[in-house]
Structures are given as structure tokens and as C-alpha cells.
């Protein structure tokens, strides 16, 4: 054990605390903190745990009501009522900085952490999703390929071994993420409403157990590392990255669910960021209780660990569990069966203090409330200012673009651009089918899992077009929610709730904070109108390298409920000779701002994000769901990245077993590129039996929406006016193989 350093302001600063925060600690304690206490405050008051710079904005989001069974932030994950006495627990979280320095373990433990958040509540994880951002993939940058390859492998290896299907996600490649990739992991679980476990510690004298893996020195100060920018020194933070063991996690899952079913659990919380510190303080504060723990009893895997190290370790696959007194043996027996640790380390008290003993010494004695979010943790109002780039980029004149000569070429270039190209190189490394529930596999608008024993299914998707958010954070925030909702609706699901992962730069930069405020305002407005409350999530600031901040990237994880399995709808065309139409808002200007077309073909990020009206979006979703439940819709696909031309092509080639061409006539009155590639919002392509056309049109009209007949399915070509005439095999080759060609160095 190394000697403890002298406690002073300098030390506090080196642990990431501000001078005023150090003074506040002294005020709370009425004395100078011990080294262990200082460490505890430094992690609990890090941005990652305290949300000190974001909570005031987050509170403006709609965070209760609807189907929500707990309010946002109350438990380890959000909990939503889906009927049949069932609830869905779901949440998304970032693991960006660990993944930047150690992509494999960083991504793997991101998955592990979010899975634990789900099963700590008693829910069995049934699906995993992710949202990833890297630097440009097709510019020959080996570091980007290395990060991409290993993040995907880390996600796959952990989820595959654990036995949860990884079924949906999104990936974009932009230069701004080169040094600070984003790795957001989401998990979805199912629990009987009567078997939900809470993260509360209460009942004086009840024993406190640590279960799962032993505690080592890995991940110490992980939460603090997550709360600073990526720099040259980040490489030295590699020891702050935890190491994952999906096998132990799988055992922990089974043991935990068995324990909850046995009825002896008062409360439990997983140990993620800030390890034992966070779980003891948060659980105590929530139950208005205290806790006395003895670190000599904690199973450790390294010798000579200090109290400081044990309290701050972020070793994975551990939980803190409060058991009903007298029922200890039941708990021990279950964990013995699964060959896991289950050791009593303390008990509940009623004085509101967390007391930590080690080697006969009182190492920490702190009021639990003083450390936690909503209690004594600091809350800051940050300055904000509209960045100057916003106005500059909006001055962009779309008519100044040179018109392409060959639109077939443009379509192929878009199809093979890594942002749009099919991600099978990624999702074929994920077990997408374990648990035998996956009805719609990755690749479409959203993925669908059925719920055995019911006639229901869940549709899930992660979404964020960060280019839009960069150009216009308010509209971009709204679009992220609307597009995710549209995606699940296209599969036949009612969008019911979201979780979000807010990835931004340094909040102390007023321009970054303006992006943050505006994006949240957009998310909040859209969620209120679409009636999809925010169940919780995660804020990740400091996503910056010395060169730049990432685009503001508030990722939305959308949950949709399919009430009847017969409503499940594909994004691809199913029948030869079906009519194709686009429904929704067709009166908006066909702008190109922030589009993939601008980026891929003209190498530009400029203009404004497309317009969006969430009220129209709501009508479109309601209308589509009504059409789907009437049984008249054979496919539905949302128009998004790459615009109408890409959406049509995807509907033609998405089903690799049965690809179908299409012949479409557009009334093109301006330049074709606007019609083909504009990403104007609130539009869905549907296909249907021509005999149903009048009744479909009538329904669309009653919702006050536009209907435009585009053409028919059939043949083996994608034909749009005289402008595009492309064989579906050629389109498929570009779309399906682009990423593997890059990763295998074939381009």
C-alpha cells in the first residue's frame, strides 16, 4: 500500500474537483476529508455521476406520465408498462472515452454495464442495441479502422457470450469523431411488474452484501476520466478502463434473477461508475438510510489494496444487495449454486451516513445525501451563446452546387458510402437471433422481437443525425426523436417512450452549452408532442480532442410496442406489381442542407437542417399505424439519409432472398438532385395492392396528410423517370459489400 498523500486543494484539483467544490466538502463534513473521502466525493461529483452541468436542462424534458412506471432517473433504468403485467426496462449509456483508448474492453464493458442496469431491476435482457461514431472510414485511416474493428468485436463478444441478441443500431463516420469515437450501448429487458427490484437501501439492521466478481484495481477513476477531454495523456489512462468478463456477467444475471424471485431482496444496485462508493451512497440516500461497511470483508483479487482503491474500483460484474435480515442463507445458497461471491460486508443504519471501516480504522464517514445527485452534489448553471458557424453555414446557396451528370453514378456512390451502406459487416458479428425472438433482423428501419407467451412484440431503434443537430440543434433534436419514432412505426409499432444518450463537447464552452440546451429543447418538444416521455439515459460531455469537439450527438433510443403480431411490417417490397406511394408531409421545400448527398457527392456540410413539424409527424405515425392495422400495407420505409432515391433502392434490395425492382415516375419540376436526395422530413414510402388505393388515399386524407403515387414494384431494375436506371444486382453489390471491402483493404 502506498502512503496517502497530504489532503489539500491541490490534491482535490488533481482529482478533478474545483476549489469551491473542495470547500463545500469541508463544509459538509465540518473538517478536512480523509483521502478516501476525498476520492469518494471526487467521483460522485464528477460530471458522469452528478450531472452537475446538465441536470437543470434535463429536468425540462417530459420525464413522467404515459406508460412510465418510474420517473426518469429514479431507478437504474426506465420502466414502461406494456400490459399483461409486463414492463420493459431499458436504457442507453455511453462508453466513449474508455473506447477511445482501449476499444475492445471499452466497448465490451459498455455493454456489460448497461446489461447490469437492466437485470438489477429484475428484468431479463432481451435485446441489445448500440449507436457508434468513428472518423471517416474510407480515407485510409488505419487508426479509425482499428477502433471500428475492435469496438464491434468488443460489443459482439460480450453480448454474444452473455446471450442477448444485439439487434439494432446506427453508425456514422465523420472526421470530428476520429479521436473521440462515440460508443453508446443500449439494453432492453422484460420484467413482471410484480417482480421489479428497486435500488433502495432501508431497514435498520438489514445486511448489505457484495455479490459477483472480486474487486481489483481496474477502472479506478473511470468516472473522472469520462469527465474530461481526450488528450495526449489519455493513453496513460488505460488503467482507468475496466476489463469485462461476460461469462461471470451471465452467471450474475441468472443468480440475480433467481435471488429477486426468492423474495428476499430489499434493494440492489449494480456497480458501474464509482463502484462501491456510488452504490452505497445512492442506495442509502434513496432510502433515507445509512450504511456501515467493512472493506476487510470485500473479496479482492489483488493484494495490498487501500481503502481508497477498494472504494473507487470499477471492477465489473459486481452488485450491492440489501437482503432482508434472517434470509441471508437463501441468498448465499443461490450464489453458491452459480459459483459466485456473495459476502456480507455491512448493514443498514438509520443515521444517514455511510461509514467505511478498513483494517480497524474508520476510513470514511460521510452523509450519503451530500454526495448524490438531487442531494448535496453541486448543480451549475452554465453560460451559453449561439456559435458563429451557425449563421455562416446557413448562408449556403444550394443553387451554387454543380449538378451531377450521371445520376446512376451518384446513387451508387451514395449506396456505397459507409454512412448509408448496409452494416452487415458489423451486425453479422453480433448474435442477432439468440433467445429465438427476433422477427425483424438488423438492416431495416427498426428491429423487432416478439414476446413469447403474448401476441405482442417490441420494436426498437437508436437514432441521431448529428449533422442536422450541428446545423440546427433545436430542429436536429426534434428530428432525432421524430425519425426514431417513424422508424418503429414503419415496423407496425406505437412509439411509447425514449431513452437518450447526450454526447456533447465541453459544457464550460458556452457555444457547446448552447448546442446542448437547444438540442434538449428540441427533444423535449418532440417527445411531448409524440407522447414518448424520456425514461432516463446518460449525459456524456467532454467529447473533444485538442483539435475539435464532436458534432452534438444526442442519440435517441426509441421503444415501440406492437400490440398484434400480424401488424409487423417490413421495410422492403414484398410483392411484384404492388403500387408504391409516399405519404406524409410533401409540401416542405426539398432542401439539401445537412444531407448525405451534400456530404458524399459535394464534400460539404452546410445549410440548415430540414424543417420538421412534430405535430405532422404525430399524424403521420397515427395514420400509418391505422393503415397497417387495416392490413392494407405490404411495406413501409421511412425516407431519411440519402432521400427518396435511397429509400426506394433500400426497399428494393433489403430482402436479400427476394429482391424486387421498381419503376417510379416523379413530377420533377426543378433539379433532379433535390427530388431524389433531399432529406425533407415526415415522409414514408408504402407499398400496397393497387386495389386498395382509394381506401388508403381516403385514410391519408382524413389525417390531413399528402399522398403521392410513385409507381409500381417489379422487374430487376430501379427506374426513376429517365434519370435513374440501375440493375438491382449492381445496387446490391455497392450497398452490401462497401464496408467489408474497406475493412479488407480491397479499396
Amino acid at each position, binding site marked *: 500500500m502506498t502512503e496517502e498523500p497530504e489532503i489539500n486543494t491541490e490534491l482535490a484539483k488533481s482529482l478533478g474537483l474545483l476549489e469551491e467544490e473542495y470547500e463545500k466538502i469541508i463544509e459538509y463534513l465540518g473538517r478536512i476529508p480523509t483521502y478516501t473521502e476525498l476520492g469518494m466525493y471526487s467521483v460522485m461529483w464528477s460530471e458522469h455521476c452528478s450531472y452537475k452541468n446538465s441536470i437543470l436542462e434535463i429536468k425540462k424534458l417530459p420525464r413522467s406520465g404515459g406508460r412510465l412506471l418510474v420517473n426518469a432517473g429514479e431507478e437504474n433504468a426506465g420502466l414502461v408498462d406494456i400490459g399483461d403485467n409486463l414492463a420493459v426496462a431499458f436504457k442507453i449509456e455511453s462508453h466513449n472515452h474508455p473506447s477511445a483508448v482501449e476499444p475492445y474492453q471499452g466497448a465490451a464493458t459498455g455493454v456489460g454495464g448497461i446489461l447490469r442496469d437492466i437485470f438489477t431491476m429484475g428484468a431479463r435482457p432481451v435485446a441489445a442495441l448500440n449507436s457508434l461514431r468513428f472518423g471517416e472510414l474510407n480515407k485510409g485511416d488505419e487508426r479509425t479502422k482499428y477502433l471500428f474493428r475492435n469496438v464491434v468485436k468488443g460489443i459482439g463478444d460480450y453480448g454474444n457470450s452473455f446471450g442477448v441478441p444485439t439487434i439494432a443500431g446506427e453508425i456514422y463516420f465523420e472526421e470530428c469523431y476520429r479521436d473521440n469515437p462515440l460508443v453508446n450501448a443500449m439494453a432492453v429487458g422484460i420484467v413482471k411488474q410484480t417482480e421489479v427490484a428497486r435500488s433502495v437501501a432501508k431497514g435498520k439492521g438489514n445486511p448489505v452484501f457484495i455479490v459477483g466478481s472480486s474487486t481489483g484495481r481496474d477502472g479506478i477513476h473511470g468516472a473522472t476520466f469520462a469527465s474530461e477531454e481526450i488528450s495526449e495523456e489519455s493513453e496513460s489512462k488505460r488503467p482507468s478502463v475496466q476489463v469485462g468478463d461476460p461469462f461471470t456477467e*451471465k452467471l450474475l444475471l441468472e443468480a440475480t434473477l433467481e435471488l429477486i424471485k426468492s423474495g428476499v431482496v430489499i434493494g440492489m444496485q449494480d456497480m458501474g461508475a464509482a463502484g462501491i462508493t456510488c452504490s452505497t451512497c445512492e442506495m442509502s440516500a434513496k432510502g433515507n438510510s445509512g450504511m456501515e461497511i467493512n472493506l476487510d470483508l470485500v473479496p479482492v483479487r489483488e493484494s495490498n489494496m487501500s481503502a481508497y482503491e477498494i472504494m473507487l474500483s470499477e471492477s465489473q460484474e459486481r452488485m450491492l444487495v440489501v437482503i432482508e435480515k434472517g434470509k441471508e442463507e437463501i441468498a448465499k445458497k443461490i450464489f453458491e449454486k452459480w459459483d459466485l461471491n456473495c459476502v456480507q460486508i455491512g448493514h443498514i443504519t438509520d443515521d444517514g451516513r455511510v461509514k467505511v471501516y478498513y483494517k480497524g480504522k474508520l476510513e470514511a464517514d460521510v452523509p450519503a445525501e451530500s454526495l448524490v445527485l438531487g442531494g448535496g452534489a453541486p448543480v451549475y448553471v452554465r453560460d451559453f451563446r449561439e456559435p458563429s458557424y451557425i449563421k455562416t453555414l446557413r448562408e449556403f446557396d444550394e443553387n451554387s452546387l454543380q449538378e451531377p451528370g450521371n445520376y446512376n453514378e451518384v446513387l451508387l456512390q451514395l449506396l456505397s458510402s459507409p454512412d448509408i451502406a448496409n452494416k452487415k459487416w458489423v451486425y453479422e*458479428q453480433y448474435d442477432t*437471433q439468440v*433467445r429465438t425472438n427476433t422477427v425483424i433482423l438488423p438492416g431495416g428501419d427498426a428491429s423487432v422481437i416478439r414476446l*413469447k407467451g403474448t401476441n405482442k412484440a417490441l420494436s426498437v431503434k437508436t437514432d441521431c443525425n448529428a449533422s442536422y443537430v450541428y446545423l440546427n440543434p433545436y430542429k436536429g433534436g426534434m428530428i432525432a426523436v421524430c425519425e426514431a419514432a417513424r422508424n418503429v412505426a414503419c415496423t407496425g409499432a406505437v412509439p411509447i417512450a425514449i431513452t437518450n444518450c447526450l454526447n456533447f463537447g465541453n459544457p464550460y464552452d458556452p457555444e457547446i452549452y448552447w448546442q446542448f440546451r437547444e438540442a434538449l429543447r428540441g427533444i423535449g418538444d418532440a417527445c411531448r408532442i409524440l407522447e414518448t416521455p424520456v425514461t432516463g439515459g446518460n449525459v456524456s460531455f467532454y467529447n473533444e480532442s485538442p483539435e475539435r469537439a464532436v458534432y452534438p450527438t444526442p442519440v435517441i433510443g426509441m421503444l415501440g410496442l406492437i400490440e398484434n403480431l400480424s401488424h409487423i411490417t417490413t421495410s422492403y417490397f414484398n410483392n411484384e406489381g404492388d403500387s408504391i406511394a409516399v405519404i406524409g408531409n410533401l409540401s416542405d421545400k426539398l432542401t439539401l442542407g445537412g444531407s448525405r448527398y451534400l456530404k458524399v457527392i459535394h464534400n460539404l456540410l452546410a445549410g440548415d437542417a430540414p424543417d420538421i413539424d412534430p405535430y405532422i409527424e404525430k399524424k403521420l405515425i397515427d395514420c400509418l399505424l391505422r393503415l397497417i392495422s387495416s392490413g392494407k400495407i405490404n411495406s413501409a420505409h421511412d425516407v431519411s439519409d440519402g432521400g427518396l432515391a435511397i429509400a426506394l433502392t433500400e426497399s428494393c434490395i433489403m430482402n436479400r432472398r427476394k429482391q424486387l425492382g421498381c419503376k417510379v415516375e416523379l413530377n420533377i419540376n426543378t433539379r433532379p438532385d433535390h427530388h431524389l436526395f433531399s432529406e425533407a422530413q415526415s415522409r414514408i414510402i408504402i407499398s400496397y395492392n393497387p386495389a386498395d388505393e382509394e381506401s388508403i388515399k381516403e385514410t391519408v386524407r382524413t389525417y390531413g396528410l399528402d399522398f403521392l403515387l410513385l409507381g409500381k414494384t417489379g422487374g430487376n431494375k430501379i427506374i426513376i423517370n429517365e434519370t435513374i436506371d440501375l440493375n438491382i444486382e449492381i445496387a446490391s453489390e455497392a450497398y452490401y459489400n462497401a464496408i467489408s471491402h474497406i475493412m479488407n483493404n480491397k479499396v
Partner: protein
Amino acid sequence: MSKAKFGVVVFPGSNCDHDAYYVLKNLLNQDVKFLWHKDSSVGDRNVIVLPGGFSYGDYLRCGAIARFSPLMKDILKFAEKGGIVIGICNGFQILCEAGLLPGALLRNQSLRFICKTVRLKIENKDSKFTNSFTKDLIDLPVAHGEGNYYCDEETLNELRDKNRIVFRYSENPNGSLDDIAGICNEKGNVLGMMPHPERAAESIIGGTDGKFIFQSIINSLN
């Protein structure tokens, strides 16, 4: 003539155990029980399913630790007496490690995990595991990082000569020798296969070809 009594073995790290159980119980109305790896006997079970997953985390080597579990000792005896054993994915790896089937499953040629539906050719339709198929080509999902079958030439010749190659890949996803996807032992009562029949037993999740493998087992007992 006897009724099938299935036992699905649960190793720590098994994760397709519930999927196999579900197909047998809910879709085929069979008598099925889970067997715990620490049990010493298969009891009254007359068909043993070694499910997919990552038994013991696949640490050391896939299936290398599972073979030492107490229950596996009894399964060896059970198989020697002619009891029906089907090992799926990790189960196939365990059967090879345990010596019930020859050869080994190496890492996929791509060095990446692969999950997708593949086309298989049924090479032997007389086996206890394939007798109810009426077609030659079937579609089943694979999901593995180590499914690249390998054995020495002598063994391969024997597998070929004695009609012990039960399934071959139409498009080899993992570099498997001679496109081998599944083999049986000499007596024909032990099958190991990398593809997952339990994942293709309902049209809502993409196919029903897998159901016929379990149906064949049921038929062969009747």
C-alpha cells in the same frame, strides 16, 4: 418403441438452453427437462441436448472445460449405450472435446464471429436426426466464432466412407473442411452440428426447417 424424454443440459454459460427447451416443450409438446451440469446422472432422459452458448465462458478452448463436468461423465456412458445425443454449436464443440465425435472446431477463417442464415445440404437422410426431411436443401442460422471443422485425412475419409457427414454448407461460412456443418458418430446416435435448428422452428422468426431435426429424433424413437 418409446416416447422421447428430452434432457437439455445447462452448463454455466449455456445460452441457447431455453431456446431448445422452448421448441421441444411449446412447439413439439415433448416431455423435456433441464439437466444441471453438476448433476451426476441423466436420470430417465433418453435424448440429451447439449445446447449452444459459451459453456464456462469458452475459456481455455470452446468446450474444453465442459467435458469435465460431472454430468458429462454420465453422458459419455449414456452415448456408449446408444442413447441419442445432439450437440448444437457449443454442444458440438463439447462433443469433440469429450471424444464422442472426432475432429475439432477451429476459429472461423475470417477470425470473426458470424451470425447469419445459411443454406445446408442434407447428405444423409437416413439418420436418426434427418429421417423426416423430404427435401435436400434447408436453411438454418449459424452463430459462432469457432465453427471451422477440422480433422485429419484418415478421419475425413472415414466420415465420408461411412456416410457420417450429415450436413454440408452450400456456401461455407467459416472455412470448414469439406464444407462440413454436422457429423455423427459411427453408431449414428450422436450428432454434432454448428447450425442452430432451434432457431428455425417457427415461420415468424424466419423458418421451420430446424423443427424437422427434432421431429426426426422423435420419430426414430417411436
